[in-house]
């Protein structure tokens, strides 16, 4: 057993650290901090600036892609280190929809024209993607989706509605699961994977405001949207296979350990500043215990992730265990947003940045901590709810 990195990996770690220090724009840091303070959505520029910078540096915007498509071709360990360093430096997360979700499907199942058309824009960050999976009636039971694609000549005519579409308001393209064969024996067998230009007539994006007041997700409506048949990936009615591939493909970093470590550090600092019974809150045994429990859970999770990484590096591939990382990683994020909110006592209440409140109150660090708590209830719901993840482990790992 050896949990130290090789000298090559440490050299790589230093390279990443230096690159971030020299290239992550302070203006971006300031802009995001300001948005958080004001409880505002990040702009497209906030979301893509760092992506574009990474895209110009040896394919670092797409660490998992093979080198032949311009990817960084990182080893699993390098990917881990890269994500860890970005988290440590609190860099904005590169939206995964293009680089981590759609692109691997394109370069694995798409044709040469599709690769040439889409991969460069995803790599560079010029083209922003969103994911059209969920529908109002199709959440965990995704294969029940109803959005139809009917072939007419060399086009598909799309009708239906997608929902919970994250950042669709910024997206240039959407990758969708659509029903091409309503009569298939099994619902999974009638689904296709198709790429749609968001500027196509008949598409309407309607914002959904979540309980923290933020427009992060949307409804996307399709009314007789005419999509060239060449936008279909792979074979018609094989979409479910590609979607499953996508789910299994890119789960590294799913546990968000490094970001949670940062969060614990910050909670401790907040608890050292907050007073309770005349002492800093961090000396309150009840609160101390909560921090300690969170910290230990995170250490366990970190080593669970490292064990998965070690397996992956040895070529054994991360299996359905990644469901475990999703469950525990999101539990962790929820626990930590809760502790941060709890740490500030009454100052969890003010809702800053609304049209009714532009005068800030309370300590600076308390602003909108409750918003994060409420927002992160999403984490155990998205990406396959944590109950669905348990079903996956039950079936795939425990053979129940």
């Amino acid at each position: 057993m050896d949990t130290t990195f090789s000298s090559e990996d440490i050299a790589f770690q230093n390279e990443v650290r230096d690159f971030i220090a020299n290239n992550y724009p302070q203006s971006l840091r300031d802009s995001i901090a300001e948005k958080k303070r004001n409880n505002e959505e990040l702009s497209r520029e906030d979301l893509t600036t760092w992506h574009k910078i990474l895209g110009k540096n040896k394919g670092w915007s797409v660490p998992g892609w093979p080198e032949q498509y311009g990817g960084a071709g990182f080893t699993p360990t390098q990917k881990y280190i890269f994500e860890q360093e970005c988290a440590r430096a609190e860099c904005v997360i590169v939206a995964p929809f293009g680089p981590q979700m759609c692109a691997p499907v394109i370069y694995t199942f798409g044709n040469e024209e599709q690769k040439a058309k889409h991969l460069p824009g995803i790599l560079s960050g010029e083209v922003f993607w969103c994911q059209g999976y969920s529908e109002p009636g199709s959440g965990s039971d995704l294969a029940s989706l109803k959005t139809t694609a009917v072939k007419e000549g060399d086009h598909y005519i799309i009708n239906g509605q997608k929902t919970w579409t994250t950042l669709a308001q910024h997206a240039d393209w959407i990758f969708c699961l659509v029903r091409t064969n309503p009569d298939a024996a099994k619902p999974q067998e009638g689904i296709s994977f198709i790429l749609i230009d968001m500027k196509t007539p008949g598409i309407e994006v309607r914002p959904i405001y979540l309980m923290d007041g933020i427009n992060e997700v949307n409804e996307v409506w399709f009314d007789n949207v005419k999509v060239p048949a060449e936008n279909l990936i792979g074979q018609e009615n094989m979409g479910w296979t590609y979607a499953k591939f996508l789910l299994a493909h890119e789960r590294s970093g799913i546990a968000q350990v490094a970001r949670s470590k940062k969060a614990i550090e910050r909670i401790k600092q907040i608890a050292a500043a907050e007073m309770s019974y005349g002492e800093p809150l961090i000396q309150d045994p009840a609160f101390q215990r909560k921090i300690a429990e969170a910290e230990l859970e995170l250490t366990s999770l970190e080593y669970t992730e490292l064990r998965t990484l070690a397996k992956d590096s040895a070529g054994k591939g991360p299996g359905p265990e990644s469901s475990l990382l999703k469950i525990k990683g999101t539990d962790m994020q929820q626990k930590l947003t809760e502790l941060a909110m709890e740490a500030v006592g009454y100052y969890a209440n003010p809702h800053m940045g609304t049209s009714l409140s532009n005068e800030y109150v309370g300590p600076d660090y308390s602003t909108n901590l409750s918003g994060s708590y409420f927002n992160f209830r999403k984490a155990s719901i998205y990406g396959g709810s944590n109950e669905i993840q348990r079903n996956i482990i039950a079936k795939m790992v425990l053979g129940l």
Partner: protein
Amino acid sequence: MHFELTEEQTLLENMVTAFVRDDYNWETREKIVKTEEGWKPENWSKFAELGLLSVPFSEDHGGLGGTAVDSMVVMEQFGKGLVVEPFMPSILLSGNLISKLANESQANEIIPKIIEGESRYVFAYAEPQSRFDLSDVKTSATKDGDEYTLNGFKSVVFGASMATHIIIAARTSGDQRSEDGITLFLADIKSNGITLQTYPTIDEYRASEVVIENLKISSDMVLGEVDKAYSVVEEVIDLATIAACSEAVGILQVLKDSTIDYCKQRKQFGQPISKNQAIQHKLVDMMIEYEQAKSILYAAVTADLSNADERKKAVSGAKARIGQSIKFVGESAIQLHGGMGMVDEYMISHYFKRATMLGVLFGNVDFHMKRFVGLTQSNIEPIDGSATIRGGY
């Protein structure tokens, strides 16, 4: 970065696995724990043959020079077999104390006999009032010429009835709870002045209350430096705590796997109960708790244990977190076994009981949580800008 064992460690693991499989099946163990002695001395000879008794000793003294990973490898497998022979108290605890503290003549006298299986030491440290506090020592040792006289009472000394010798922590100076002033003494366990009251534990091990009355010990039987035992005792108990965690992880694996198998076989309402989602999710949570326990054990054995602060943090962190897993996995295993889980005749309850008692050994969840807090939440600088209170100020 990897979690593979070395070739030597794999051999060690295979050896212990084979012992548990071939010499320690359930029926054999049942017979052993029901004997008067509560262990099988022949197994100790077998351990000597296999070289297990040399694990903590340095290579200079004919030992294996074992690391935390080596003791993990052994204890995980012993856990799976619920091996009751006093390997942890005699070898990983007392053996390690001797290895770290014995002077050259003591080492030459004692260590070969331990490795050959002739001598077994146990370490008497806890007292009725001390709970898990290693500095709380009332047992006194007063010096008169070249001799010490010891008086006091030691609690729940595992394996004492199987031992040939005892190491006693006694106070030679300082207040009852001061770290300074604790000294270790070596004695033949049959010495005049030592009385054992031996009893079975709930998990079928043997422990003893040790009454010490006017026990005379020559000053050359002091182990280590007079008054200065505390930090080494803390270190050795920490390393033994990792061993206890390893045993627990081995047991948790059995609890988890056996429960999964049982739920696949047990039919109700015309189908295996493992088809019910309520059962499935509980089993998944057991598996997650097991994996998390194993992970934090790996974090502990790969930590820099030579650095005292790192060691304490790693050990208390692991023991606290694994203590939580023990409770969840153990209680769930019994629950999902239903009535069968309650039965003494069926093995699952025995694993549950042992795991639960390991949760107490060397400090329970509360104790280690508190110790971990002390190491990780002191001297935290308040966050920047905390003085900036906006609004009406």
